[in-house]
């Protein structure tokens, strides 16, 4: 099974799985497979949510555009 999905990809895939299983045209074997994949995706999503640390960056203007730098809002209060 796909191990390194982004959260976005995981949720999109999850949605696709739900749709596929709902239309009811898949074989039982396939359904079982989808179900297993769905459970694993949910686990991955939950894990990502649990581990998430918010990244905040600020754009800084340079000669040729913008650069991102870490931003800590609390320092600027």
């Amino acid at each position, binding site marked *: 099974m796909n191990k390194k999905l*982004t*959260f*976005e990809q995981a*949720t999109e895939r*999850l949605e696709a*799985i*739900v749709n596929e*299983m*709902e239309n*009811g045209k898949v074989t*039982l074997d396939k*359904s*079982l497979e*989808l*179900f297993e994949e*769905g*459970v694993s995706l*949910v686990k991955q*999503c*939950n894990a*990502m*949510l649990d581990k*998430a*640390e*918010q*990244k*905040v*960056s*600020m*754009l*800084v203007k340079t000669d040729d555009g*913008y650069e*991102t730098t870490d*931003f800590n*809002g*609390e320092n*600027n*209060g």
Partner: protein
Amino acid sequence: MKSLQTPKPIFSVSEINEFIKLTLENSPTLSNVTVSGEISNFTNHKSGHLYFTLKDDGAIIKCVMFKSYASSLGFIPQSGMKVCAHGRISVFPRDGQYQFYINSMMPDGIGSLNVAYEMLKNKLDGMGLFDEDKKKPLPKIPMTIGIITSPTGAAIRDMINISKRRFPLAELILFPSLVQGEGAPSQLISGIKYFNENPVDVIIIGRGGGSIEDLWAFNDEQLAYAVFASKIPIVSAVGHETDFTICDYVADRRAPTPSAAAELVTPETDKLKQQYNNIITHLKSSLDFQIKNRREKICAFENSRQLSSPKNQLEDKRMLLIHLSELMQSKMKFICSQKETLFSSNASKLSALNPLNILSRGYGAVYDELGGVLTSVNAISENQTINVKLHDGDIKATVNSITRGKYE
């Protein structure tokens, strides 16, 4: 009080009011004065003259603007509007009240801003910039959120705190911008352009609360066009709940405050997890349903198979056999009874033909001495011995005479 004996003139009320009036009118300051204040108790008299008071925090002054001046006003004054009015102070002797006789008036500060705001709002509305069907939906799960605001206000801190609490998986990218003053609109516009060139899932543009002048950058016409043109959904969060800016109207969603904007764009992690659990439950029930469905099908198949099982086939054959044998038996009975009937009919026919039976009815059979049957008198001669057979015995007799042809 009576120390001075110098006689003072005694004024009538009219005289003193007239005196005051002249005094005021002769004052170089009061005869040509500009006053700023807020209009209240505004009445547009049917005569065309305008009557109202100007006030500030501590005082009021009665004002009148005659029709001849009022008709050349460039705006419609109303209560609550701040204005700069020019005219003279004088007295209306009948009422003994001094008044401000205004001959020209301009919207002032917020007043003039309000006028400009209303005009721009109507214009953009007419152009369709506020149309509901042009509003883009917000993403369900934004992974990147572009924020255009000041890197120093409370607004950015509130937004970071809220999104950290609700959905820390989203990355916040701050495009620092002035949020008030002359340079603000162009920086805000640059922010929108930047996030359209370097796409994020959703943009929040805004600032914390402030005076109406502070928020004015968000009523910029060019900013309105930039917000409208953005391919990425924009949430506008300017000031407090009671502040409405042009930017709010054009944006895809208005949030009453920056904090509310952060709440609006981010899903809540706990709710998200709950949703995932629901999905699993849903998938599971869908799977169960499928399995149940399959099981029923198998059951139905099994039932249909039983009908054609060898055992059942044997039963069938046995039944057929029983049926056939019964059929056969009844056929046999029928045939037997038929034969019986035929036999008895033949037997009775046979008995009818039995010569002995004929003899019993009174006939006799005549034989010669050798046992041959005599059927004609011609075969018999007189005195010949014959035997006559009756049904119960034989007679030996001798022929006495013969009569021929008696019965022919």
